[in-house]
Structure formats: structure tokens, C-alpha cells
């Protein structure tokens, strides 16, 4: 269970090898923030299929995987682009065509299922869910009565993802990882999952990671990849804010199957790797995303 090899540094391709067709995959980050996009793109390149995605509120990571045909079961609490670009087009199209098994979850329910796995117990009692349509989407939930109060509670089964994909700031070769807040569910995914694959902006010495603050300890981490801009086009503060223009480009493309394929050809499959991806995006654009900290005005400008 513990991962104790002193050097876990692998290529992105090798890292994606930890994800098998049909796996339950937990995606770190949330919405427009620190999603494991380099790994997501690599799964597309590897033509992974039938994935069961679990997560809280997500965006392009899920939309892209669904668009690429990699997903069969969808167990996220939200997929979309909020007030920015609204509904996720590829996801929506797949959902409405019946190609996806839709098991919409709720953030807290998911948290409690992960905690059950983390605590080594087969279920957690949860207050809520009863009376909602979310309950109907989950025949695997049960019910239980409190032995003390007689209250009726939903029992949600432990959920241990096959693999968690996380993008962080720094890691050492052993797998100690530094993340900045918000941590979202990254810690819970790490401790509940069977394998944990982490990409980071930069490989660092153990002492540098320790000084920045270890959030994920090495023994829980399976493999480490150095992937600068590995969250792009989502943000990875303090390195870069999110690339709103690029997201917009994806959302526009994702409106049709053909658009999805054109996007994938141009950015993911055509260039054949992350170096190519970043070149296609353009160095100037990437550099500009780091200028958010120059001033509030610059920050606002980048996000408008």
C-alpha cells in the first residue's frame, strides 16, 4: 500500500499508464483551478476508454475527456463553466445522447464516501439526499437507522478511486508534494485512492518541498511527473491564472463533434506531447498568464 521507492519521477506517458480502461478516476482541482490537464491530455493521446470519473465541481478536464470519448460513467457534482461560458458543450451533448451513465453526485456526499474509504469503514451515514433526484440516481446508496436516536440516514458506500490525478506546485523525486490552497478534495483523493499520480510545475529538492510545506506525503504518491503549465488552461496560482481565451476557444469548438476533433488535432493529438501543446498555445500567451500578480488591474484585464 505504501509507495516507498526513492525515485518516482516518470514521463507523462508512463504516468498515464497507471490509468487503465474502465478505471474509477478522481480528478483533482476544481472548476477553472488546478485541474490535472497534462494528464487529461495524455489520457486522450493514449485513447483511454470507459473511465468512471469522480469529483466535485469541474470544467474542461471532464468536458475534454468526455469529448474525446474516454468516459462511460460520470459521477461529478457539476460540470461546466459557471457564469463564464455556461454549460459544458461536449459533456452536455454526450449526456443528452445517452452515451454517458449519469450519476450526478453532491460535494458532501462524495467527501463522505471518500472519508469512509480513508477510515477503512464500509459506509458513512449522511444527513440529506433523501427526497432529491440525486438519491434516485444512486441505487448503490442504502439507508440506516441511528442505533441511538432512531433517525433515518442515508448510508453511502466507501469510494476508493482506482487512481487520483493531481496537479501540484512542487514535488521531490520521492513524491512529497506541495500544493497551495484551495486544496479542494486533493488530500482526500490522495488518501482514499489506490494509486496517486501527480504532475507538478517543477521538480524540487526535498528540502525545498519541505520548506514550502508537504501536503501529500511520499508514501501515498505512486508517480511524479514534471509538467510545467500542467494545469493549463485552468489556473495554477501563484504561477499562472486561467487562460480564459483558450477556454473560450475550447468551448466554441466543443459545440460540435467535428469541432472537438479539430481542437484535439490542433492541440492534443497533432503536437503529440505537452511540449507541442505548449508551443501551440504560444509562449507569449503563457507568459502573460503569469502577470496576474503585477497589479489588480492587470489581473482583472487577464480575466476579462
Amino acid at each position: 500500500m505504501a509507495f516507498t521507492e526513492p525515485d518516482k519521477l516518470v514521463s507523462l506517458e508512463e504516468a498515464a499508464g497507471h490509468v487503465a480502461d474502465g478505471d474509477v478516476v478522481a480528478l483533482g482541482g476544481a472548476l477553472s483551478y488546478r485541474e490535472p490537464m497534462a494528464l487529461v491530455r495524455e489520457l486522450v493521446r493514449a485513447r483511454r476508454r470507459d473511465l468512471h470519473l469522480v469529483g466535485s465541481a469541474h470544467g474542461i478536464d471532464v468536458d475534454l475527456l468526455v469529448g474525446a470519448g474516454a468516459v462511460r460513467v460520470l459521477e461529478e457534482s457539476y460540470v461546466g463553466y459557471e457564469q463564464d461560458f455556461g454549460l459544458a458543450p461536449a459533456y452536455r451533448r454526450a449526456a443528452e445522447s445517452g452515451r454517458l451513465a449519469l450519476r450526478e453526485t453532491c460535494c458532501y456526499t462524495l467527501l463522505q464516501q471518500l472519508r469512509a474509504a480513508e477510515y477503512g469503514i464500509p459506509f458513512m451515514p449522511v444527513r440529506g439526499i433523501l427526497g432529491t433526484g440525486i438519491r434516485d440516481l444512486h441505487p448503490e446508496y442504502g439507508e440506516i437507522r441511528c442505533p441511538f436516536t432512531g433517525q433515518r440516514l442515508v448510508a453511502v458506500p466507501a469510494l476508493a478511486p482506482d487512481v487520483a490525478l493531481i496537479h501540484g506546485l512542487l514535488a521531490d523525486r520521492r513524491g512529497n508534494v506541495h500544493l497551495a490552497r484551495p486544496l479542494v478534495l486533493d488530500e482526500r483523493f490522495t488518501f482514499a485512492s489506490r494509486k496517486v499520480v501527480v504532475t507538478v510545475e517543477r521538480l524540487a529538492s526535498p528540502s525545498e518541498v519541505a520548506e514550502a510545506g508537504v501536503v501529500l506525503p511520499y508514501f501515498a504518491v505512486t508517480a511524479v511527473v514534471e509538467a510545467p503549465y500542467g494545469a493549463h488552461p485552468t489556473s495554477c496560482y501563484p504561477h499562472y491564472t486561467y487562460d480564459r481565451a483558450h477556454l473560450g476557444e475550447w468551448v466554441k469548438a466543443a459545440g460540435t463533434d467535428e469541432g472537438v476533433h479539430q481542437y484535439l488535432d490542433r492541440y492534443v493529438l497533432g503536437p503529440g506531447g505537452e511540449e507541442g501543446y505548449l508551443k501551440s498555445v504560444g509562449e507569449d500567451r503563457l507568459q502573460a498568464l503569469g502577470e496576474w500578480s503585477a497589479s489588480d488591474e492587470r489581473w482583472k484585464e487577464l480575466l476579462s
Partner: protein
Amino acid sequence: MSADFTIDEWMCAALANTIRDGEVVFHGFGSPCATIAMHVAKRTHARHMVLVEGSTYALDPDPAFVPPTSNDWSLMRRAVHVLRFEELFDLAARGGVDRMFLSGGQIDPHGNTNVTAIGPPDTPKVKLGGGGGGCNLSATVGTLTLWATRHRSGRTLVERCDVITDLGYVTPTGTRQELGFPGGGPEWLVSELGVFDFPDGRARLRRLYPDVSLDEVRAATGFELVVDPGLRPL
């Protein structure tokens, strides 16, 4: 004077007015009106409110602007502290969040909301984004302020939600008391046409925006419109 305000500003002010001083208040993601309303309240009548941002879980931040996404460091600027995801949700689960802002693609007269799907949830006609944390939160948070910006479309306030994502006062399975939920349910529903309260657990029109007529509201509302005898403009 009223002509100086946009409808968005009116809505934000109406939402802000639902907050009481000293409350712990939270909004869902993708809710810029609620974000602004909370910051307005914190700077005016509710200086002791505990303001938790909807996706960063930043505590009492001072953002320079409202970004187009809610999980952004700009909403953490000068925050006292950034709560963990777990800390916020646990707080709400034990009744420690007093008010939450929630919206819905559909909202029924009992205050149930639907952000999951139009049509059946497993084979939807339109797949909506999903409820995030609302399903659990609506069961345990002290009071809810619902909001809707597309009341006028006629498709938002409906007799029955296709799917219930977040709980109002009563569902086909039972009342929130029968289901064992400690949260108080929706207190207000603020739309771009008017403001509803929920006496006896059913939406009742209580305020109209300037330049909006009762007939307009009735035409846009998919359930039987109950009107407060003391109805007056905002």
C-alpha cells in the same frame, strides 16, 4: 432615483437585504450576484457576518473585482484565512452555516430547485451543470436565499421540477421535518421581477421591482401566484 440603478444592482441589493448581521453566509459557485450581495451586506448592515466565498472557501476576503469563475485567487485576496473544503461542508452539516444562496434552472412553489436536468436525470433533454454541494447543503443550512435571473422566461418558476436537486419545504417523499433535516429551508426567493417569501412553506410574492407589473409576474410564473396583501414595490 430608481432609474439610476440597473436591474442587476437592484437584485444584488435585494439579495444583500436577506442577510442578517452576525450570520455565517455562503454562496454556491457561479453566483456573481450572490458574491456581490454578500460583499455589499458585509460593508453595510452586516459587518459582523462571516463571509465564506463559494468555491475557494476564503474567509472574509476583500476582492478587487469579481472574476468570471468562482475558484479563483482573486476571491481570496486579503482573506483572514482559507477554510478547507471539508471545514466548510462540515460546518454546514452541523448547522453552522446560517444562510446560503442557491439558484435553479427550475424552482417550484415549495422552493425545491433543479440544476440537474430538464427531462429525466439519467436521459435528459437538457443536461444542466449539476448541483455542486447544494443537495446536502440545502438539508442542513439554517436558511436559504433562492435567486433566479430568468424569471421572465417563463421556464424558471414552475409548478414541478423535473428533478429535485436542492430541497425546499416539501418533496414528493415528505417534508424536510419528515426527512429528518434540521435546516430551515428557503426564506426568500429573489428574481429579476420580484421578491417572494415562504409563509407556510409556499412562495408568496411580497415585493415588486419598479416598473414591473403584477400581471407580468403572473404571466412569467408557472405556478399559481400567491400575493401578499401588503405587496409593495422594492
